[in-house]
């Protein structure tokens, strides 16, 4: 039996050195000790949290956060497939890039949430208000995560939240403009903002009652 903390540390080391095979091996090891979902939640989430926090503190870089998320997503998909019953019992969640095409932030959050066992729909990039309102309505989305890189794109979310105000959907925003202006998320009428994958996960956990 391996100690969970030791596995977390080993995984973090493997991810930071981009050692994909080693990282996948550790995640498999964790999943054989407990249920796959527990392995995903404990070992993967904790390792990704450390890396995300390291980025926030300036110790690690965004590329490390991104590649780590990709590797973990792949490994968790193997132990917890898309159709796994644990993934199904969740409120409908979706993620997209609003009004621009810079995908990295969205991809990081998408991978991190999936690696933590959540399932969410990728709405893509270049989204506009009209499209999103239709998608939310049609797909009955109750948690909508939006990423932006440019300030004008972020400001356009205000109109979107206005149009969504009578729908049972919570809009969570992230991206550079929200990092550099800490009140911007309130100004655009979002439910919350997150600076790191960990914060995104906390918000989603809160909204879903930790239902993974």
């Amino acid at each position: 039996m391996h100690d969970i903390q030791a596995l977390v540390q080993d995984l973090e080391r493997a991810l930071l050195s981009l050692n994909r095979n080693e990282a996948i091996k550790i995640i498999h090891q964790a999943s054989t000790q407990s249920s796959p979902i527990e392995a995903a939640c404990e070992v993967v989430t904790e390792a990704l949290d450390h890396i995300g926090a390291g980025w926030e503190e300036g110790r690690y870089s965004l590329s490390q956060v991104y590649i780590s998320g990709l590797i973990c997503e792949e490994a968790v998909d193997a132990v917890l497939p898309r159709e796994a019953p644990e993934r199904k019992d969740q409120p409908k969640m979706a993620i997209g890039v609003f009004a621009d095409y810079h995908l990295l932030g969205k991809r990081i959050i998408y991978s991190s949430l999936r690696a933590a066992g959540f399932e969410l729909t990728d709405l893509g990039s270049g989204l506009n208000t009209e499209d999103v309102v239709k998608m939310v309505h049609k797909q009955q989305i109750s948690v909508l995560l939006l990423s932006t890189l440019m300030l004008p794109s972020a400001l356009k979310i205000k109109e979107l939240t206005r149009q969504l105000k009578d729908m049972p959907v919570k809009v969570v925003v992230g991206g550079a403009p929200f990092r550099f202006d800490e009140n911007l998320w309130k100004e655009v009428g979002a439910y919350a903002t997150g600076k790191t994958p960990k914060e995104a996960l906390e918000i989603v956990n809160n909204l879903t009652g930790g239902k993974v």
Partner: protein
Amino acid sequence: MNTMAITSMERVLKTLGHQEPDRVPMFLMLTMHGAKELGLSIREYFSKPEHVIEGQLRLGQKYQNDCIVPFFYGPLEIEAFGGEVIWADDGPPNSGEPFIRSIEQINHLKMPDARSSKVLQKVYKATEGLNKEVGNKIPIIGVVMSPFSLPVMQMGFDKYLEIMFFRPDLFKRLMEVNQEFCVNFANRQLEAGATAICYFDPVSSTTIIPRETYLKTGFLIAQQTISRIKGPTATHFASGRIMDIVDDIAKTGTAAVGTSTSEDIGMMKVACKGKLTVIGNMNGIDMRNWDRTKTVHIVKDIIRKAAPGGGFILSDNHGEIPFQVSEETLMTISETVQTYGHYPIQLSDG
């Protein structure tokens, strides 16, 4: 443009020599605000070099700016490669969907001729026109996207990171194409009358890649590229962190660095002392919320921490001030520099 005895050019050159000029030089990186001055939409404004010439001259005069920026917009270089640009009414044009959709396309990527490219001609014409107007009195800052950072718009960040880490063959090929293009674009701007080139390289910041990756990639590319640019350069990291790579940046041959509001400007000044001029680090995104009191406080604080000894230019942290920042705030920044930016700096803590 400045009526004082010393010109903006002399002021900037002195500070680049790590000496104290008459006052702190100020680079307000205003691009889209020229459209406001001329009463045009952003798209209309950037459609003709004559508009940019007039806009830059008016902005320079109005705010006593110490530089002229004949920069149009980031995705202009993507347009030169045949990519898409998406216009906005209230911000800079954005690059559209990346034109490299499959990474294997890199093997067949053709470099546009920066000298004859139709879309780049307006930059050269604006630079020539501005040079005719201001001569050697005000530095004209040309801008290029670094070969290492351009791929974010060419292929998207996610695909780019994957080739950077896992496909060295395609990474090398892409850098060869981009480097040649960048050198040609920079040198043609210098021929047109630019004084210096701002080498935009956000991907090299430690916000995006770790130092060990930088040393094997962005650093070497910057060294090679900057050595072929026939004029002085400043490197800008567009709000990215650089504290851990300051000594490395100094070895790329650049003279100055654009710094982030996420890092302490006083500590940055110490780290760069005698090696690099520090440019920064007002928070451009937050700036639209500043009232007069806050603006004065921030500008004074930055001057107090970074200006003594020269080697410092007050500017925003991103290299382009958002369209939403008001004339009042810009005027307050300028007035605060005129009031408190005279050497020797006499601002105390608090």
